[in-house]
């Protein structure tokens, strides 16, 4: 039997089909190519003409073949794929919040302004950094804003510093951010524990160093125990410490980056604060910073007046300007505040503890079966690799693909780059002990099959709609858009 093939919505198109009948035109028809010639994109000559039921079925089928956090455990290391509580959605859908217009006058949207102000206060409290901007729309956007903030301060001081230091275990967005902000990137190696090599770092910091970007705990899940020392070394040379808050899920309520000497950091609300990721997003990447950096934060700022009311402060002479239209991803901010208020201080601490406990529970179960290249204790995630499976010709990619047959999303693979064949597992606090046991059994089963029947692991997954996509050809010869001549009958 030929497997079912889902045609593209363009391929389903039949001339004249419509999804929703419109009433007859009762005004003079206007030719768009004449009235708005510069707006007409003539390369888009074909739009799909399909019925409503075809659209609904097409996209529902595609969504069923996808794998999301609502379907199962999604231990994608460094991404913190935790459950998105439905109460967050209910709050974000409240008409007063969902329907608020960005052009509304402050006196008409006091609740919205109070909400942003309250969230910023909590985020400042959690990070130990007194000032906050909720404008950046994602983690990398927060990084960008944070490094611009350091640049703005240096410019203000009349200093032209050229380099930003980044560890070799960093997220790729770190060097990209520094580079986009006009800095040269210097890479500091990891030591044997998997942490920043402090001795090497000391040699790298000089009067050209604008700052360093560090992730703590780092991408190996290991706490950078020398962070305070690193901050002091930087500060002594007039440089600043940026912290990538991607892994804050391991720290909330336990320790504060401000106490570690961090000058500015971003938080991923779609990781630590349980708002949806990516396609389910948008995300938000607020930044928190010290008083020294605060004057340069994106404007406008939400401020509380003496009478207790809130307003937008546009008069911020040193501000870097805007980094987002209007005021950031407001709906995401509502969800994150809901999460904080639902849990309260004790609840947030408990979640952090469970995230770390879950990871270490999994680590203990998997340790006999998978190699852990860096043995130091880990917090919220652990990086394994395929060293023991390679002997049988089974790679990290095979293990990741085969996991789909057990109903789990694969972990992050081949990252961080300091680990060969990395499998980066982050269970988050969402998963129950039973689910962690099932996940561990699946990975152990794959390890056993790698020895007894490696071919079967190399062939996985077998139960998914698409098995092994030809990623190489897709990357080498990408077809980025459909054209009518590609239409199949």
């Amino acid at each position, binding site marked *: 039997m030929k497997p079912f093939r889902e045609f593209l919505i363009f391929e389903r198109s039949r001339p004249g089909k419509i999804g929703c009948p419109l009433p007859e035109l009762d005004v003079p028809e206007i030719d768009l190519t004449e009235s708005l010639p510069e707006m007409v994109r003539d390369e888009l000559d074909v739009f799909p003409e399909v019925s409503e039921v075809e659209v609904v079925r097409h996209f529902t089928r595609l969504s069923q073949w996808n794998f999301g956090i609502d379907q199962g455990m999604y231990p994608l290391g460094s991404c913190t794929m935790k459950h998105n509580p439905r109460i967050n959605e209910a709050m974000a859908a409240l008409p007063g919040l969902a329907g608020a217009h960005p052009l509304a006058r402050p006196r008409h949207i006091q609740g919205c302004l109070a909400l942003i102000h309250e969230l910023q206060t909590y985020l400042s409290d959690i990070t130990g950094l007194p000032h906050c901007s909720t404008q950046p729309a994602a983690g990398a956007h927060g990084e960008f804003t944070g490094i611009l903030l350091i640049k703005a301060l240096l410019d203000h001081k009349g200093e032209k510093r050229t380099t930003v230091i980044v560890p070799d275990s960093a997220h*790729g967005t770190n060097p990209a951010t520094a580079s986009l902000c006009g800095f040269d990137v210097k890479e500091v190696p990891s030591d044997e524990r998997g942490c920043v090599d402090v001795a090497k770092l000391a040699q790298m910091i000089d009067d050209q160093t604008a700052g360093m970007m560090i992730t703590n705990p780092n991408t190996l899940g290991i706490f950078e125990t020398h962070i305070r020392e690193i901050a002091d070394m930087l500060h002594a040379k007039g440089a600043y410490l940026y912290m990538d808050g991607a892994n804050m899920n391991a720290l909330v309520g336990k320790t504060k980056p401000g106490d570690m000497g961090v000058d500015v950091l971003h938080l991923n609300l779609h990781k630590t604060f349980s708002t949806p990721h990516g396609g389910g997003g948008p995300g938000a990447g607020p930044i928190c910073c010290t008083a020294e950096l605060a004057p340069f934060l994106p404007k406008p700022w939400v401020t509380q007046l003496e009478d207790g009311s809130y307003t937008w402060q546009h008069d911020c002479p040193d501000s870097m300007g805007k980094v987002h239209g209007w005021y950031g991803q407001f709906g995401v901010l509502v969800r994150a505040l809901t999460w904080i208020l639902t849990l309260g201080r004790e609840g947030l601490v408990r979640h952090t503890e469970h995230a770390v406990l879950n990871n270490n529970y999994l680590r203990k179960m998997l340790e006999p079966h998978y190699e852990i290249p860096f043995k130091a204790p880990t917090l919220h995630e652990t990086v394994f690799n395929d060293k023991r499976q390679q002997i049988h010709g089974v790679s990290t990619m095979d293990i990741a693909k085969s996991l789909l047959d057990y109903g789990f999303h694969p972990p992050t693979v*081949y990252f961080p780059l300091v680990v060969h064949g990395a499998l980066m597992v982050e269970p988050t606090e969402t998963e129950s002990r039973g689910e962690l046991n099932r996940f561990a059994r699946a990975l152990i089963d794959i390890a056993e099959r790698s020895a007894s029947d490696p071919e079967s692991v190399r062939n996985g997954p077998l139960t998914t709609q698409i098995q092994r996509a030809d990623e*190489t050809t897709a990357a080498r010869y990408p077809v980025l858009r459909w054209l009518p001549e590609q239409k199949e009958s």
Partner: protein
Amino acid sequence: MYPSEYRYTKDHEWVKVEGDFAMIGITDHAQHQLGDIVFVELPEDGSTFSAGDEFGTVESVKAVAEVYMPITGEVTEINEDLEERPELVNERPHDDGWLIRVRITDPSELDELMDAEAYESFVEEESK
């Protein structure tokens, strides 16, 4: 395995000397570690680099890797075939999959690179 007349770096590039010129590529070990290569970014003809400078990137399905100059030199030719067929780096890393050709600035720098035997034991040591 590794051509004996080539010289090698710890970053897994090779150098083949041809008079005043040198061909530069990545080793079979490097291509194997990267997996299927999907894109190669190379510098412009005429650009000059010092030994240790990054001169391009090799992108595979798994990772993006920088490639570094084994020696100082001026780029006189790049392997244009790689634009259409990046897989050449996987298939024939030591010849058709070469990356750039350079005019050698200082031949004495070649002495600091490894010969095939030394490189082979370096790779063995590194993968332990």
